[in-house]
């Protein structure tokens, strides 16, 4: 036993899979101690991109510091008129034939660029389909929006750079005034942003991973136990028991499992579909192939000499099955269990993706998160990659690590694969 374990951990595939899986599992277990937030609590409205959010209101009550930051002005400029916009201005000026010598997108020359723009930009002119590169309506709209920004927002930033540090707009805040982020009463770090409901995606994802693993574990255990029991009985007892059990197994094989799952799920209704119910249903629809392969293994073991000798020694059926058959197929059962867990997680994700998952008001699952991302246009209109990409990554990593562990075990236990 010790020797086998040592061998298992010497298999590089198993080890890599095990490390990935354990990292995910430990994250799921430890994360709640650091972030004690309800994963389904809405924090904001709509998709917020990843970042740290600081309450504007509360910054007033935080202490003020004078920080002489040499590049502060440049940063402000860059934040309000990025280089991309300056290039557009330059392109427009070139296109309408203005003198652009000495103008570029650098910060030093921004005043000159802005002056040239103010002198040359004519909305009426721009409306006409007049200049190369600005023929489409969209391009002209872009110009208009840019001009609006330049005339309203930028003036604040611009004004400070005009004179010698004097604010053009009257405000009680000096340009060199700063607050310490940790002193702001309300700030929140959202490494993966928020989803459409404004929920913290990371917290939700960790919780969902935990729930999905639980679903996989319950479904996998049920499927493996059921499969093992049916396979052992059918294989060892044989005869009429075998016929009946295999008849049932055949029925389950013929009915497409996924369709059956969808039917059962929709018959139950969203309200009564708890996490456990979902897992149990996945479990009792996926035991068939475990049962089949356990049965075939047991049949080949049943006629082995050591089983015959055990029978001749007068041991009971229970003892023969548990000591002379089960240990031989245990490695195989462990492998089947790992695959069942993996396919249970995937089945839950698929069902939830179709809107047939567990009750969405209770707990998040990986499938539900995908479903929400799909329903609220994270893939398309909002382009909120943080709402679905991490979920896909986690599903793929779980599945990958479990399968890697399985092939690693296969290498250890299956002598024909040894090289």
């Amino acid at each position: 036993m010790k020797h086998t374990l040592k061998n298992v951990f010497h298999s590089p595939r198993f080890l890599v899979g095990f490390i990935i899986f354990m990292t995910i599992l430990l994250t799921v277990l430890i994360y709640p101690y650091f972030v004690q937030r309800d994963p389904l609590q809405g924090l904001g409205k709509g998709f917020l991109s990843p970042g740290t959010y600081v309450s504007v209101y509360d910054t007033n009550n935080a202490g003020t510091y004078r920080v002489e930051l040499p590049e502060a002005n440049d940063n402000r400029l860059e934040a309000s008129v990025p280089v991309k916009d300056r290039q557009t201005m330059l392109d427009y000026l070139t296109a309408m034939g203005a003198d652009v010598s000495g103008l570029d997108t650098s910060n030093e020359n921004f005043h000159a660029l802005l002056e040239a723009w103010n002198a040359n930009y004519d909305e009426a002119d721009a409306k006409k389909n007049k200049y190369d590169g600005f023929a489409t309506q969209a391009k002209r709209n872009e110009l208009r929006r840019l001009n609006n920004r330049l005339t309203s927002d930028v003036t604040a930033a611009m004004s400070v750079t005009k004179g010698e540090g004097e604010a053009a707009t009257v405000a009680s805040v000096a340009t060199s005034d700063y607050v310490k982020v940790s002193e702001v009463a309300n700030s929140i770090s959202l490494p993966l942003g928020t989803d459409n409901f404004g929920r913290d995606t990371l917290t939700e994802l960790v919780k969902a991973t935990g729930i999905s693993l639980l679903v996989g574990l319950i479904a996998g255990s049920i499927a493996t136990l059921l499969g093992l029991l049916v396979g052992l009985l059918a294989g060892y007892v044989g005869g009429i028991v075998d016929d009946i059990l295999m008849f049932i197994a055949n029925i389950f094989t013929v009915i497409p499992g996924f369709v059956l799952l969808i039917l059962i799920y929709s018959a139950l209704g969203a309200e009564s579909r708890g996490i456990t119910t979902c897992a149990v249903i996945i479990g009792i629809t996926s035991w068939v192939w475990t049962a089949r392969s356990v049965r075939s293994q047991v049949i080949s073991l049943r006629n082995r000499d050591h089983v015959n000798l055990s029978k001749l020694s007068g041991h009971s059926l229970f003892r023969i099955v548990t000591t002379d058959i089960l240990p031989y197929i245990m490695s195989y059962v462990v492998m089947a269990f790992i695959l069942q867990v993996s396919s249970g997680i995937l089945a839950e994700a698929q069902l939830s993706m179709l809107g047939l998952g567990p009750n969405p008001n209770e707990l998040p699952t990986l499938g539900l998160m995908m479903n929400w991302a799909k329903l609220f246009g994270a893939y398309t209109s909002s382009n909120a990659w943080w709402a679905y990409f991490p979920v896909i990554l986690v599903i793929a990593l779980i599945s990958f690590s479990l399968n890697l562990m399985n092939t690693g075990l296969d290498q250890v236990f299956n002598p024909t694969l040894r090289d």
Partner: protein
Amino acid sequence: MKTNEEKNVQLEDKRESVTFGSDRNKDFSKEPMCLSGRGVTRVFHTGKTTTVAVDHVDFDFHKGELISIVGESGSGKTTLSKMLLGLLEPTEGEIFFKDKPRDISSGAKKKEYWQGIQAIFQDPFSSYNVFHKIDSVLLDCINMRGGKNLPKEKKYEMMAEACSFVNLKFAELTNKYPFELSGGQMQRLMIARIFLLKPDILLADEPTSMIDACSRATILDMLLNLRNETGMTVIFITHDIGLAYYISDSVYIMEHGKFVESGKPDEVMLHPKAAYTKRLISDVPKIHEPWDLSTVEFH
């Protein structure tokens, strides 16, 4: 890599001869009957095809006799051995155990029958549960023969005795697994098991066919010793005609599920009457008489 000296040490002539009972031609027909069968038949149905593996065979095995059942592959000798062991029920005919009809209709009755019969199989590597250590294999045998409540020292003594009977050192075997032994040693441990179980009948299904020629004699020697000491009936199943001729008290030749000839080995092997036996004997390569290839007809 072994050096030549080491090899030569191993090759030193440290042999003993196989010992037999006092009389090689003892007449067993006066001994009490141990196992007999009348019209024993086994039919297998697979789909629409019906195979008659064993076809109305009669046999009488006496106490203390060493019987060889000789047949080529597919002759039905394995099916017959399974029926003798009670692992398969005959579809027709009856088997008598100690002159009484054998009854293995229920689990309890099977267990009772199995008190009297044990087996050694061809492949020592598949005969052991690889998860059980050698001492637990032997301990199991003592427990099965009602030695469950014996003191620990007594059990140890019995196991050591069984091991020394087959020339194994029990002290070296404790905490080892059977697969750590060589094929010959594993087969000897099987005999140690039988020594502890002391059944009335031992069925040995090709026990030496996977063993080297030199270790074969040792195993045969131990089997014969065991027979002489306990008076058990040994049913030896083999395809090796030379081996059957050498060790048995009586021989049954099997072809297509039927016994075509039976009797004393000298009669059957040296003066065969049935056509099949004649062909079989003449086709076996020999070393004293010429092995006539000129009569071979290709078909």
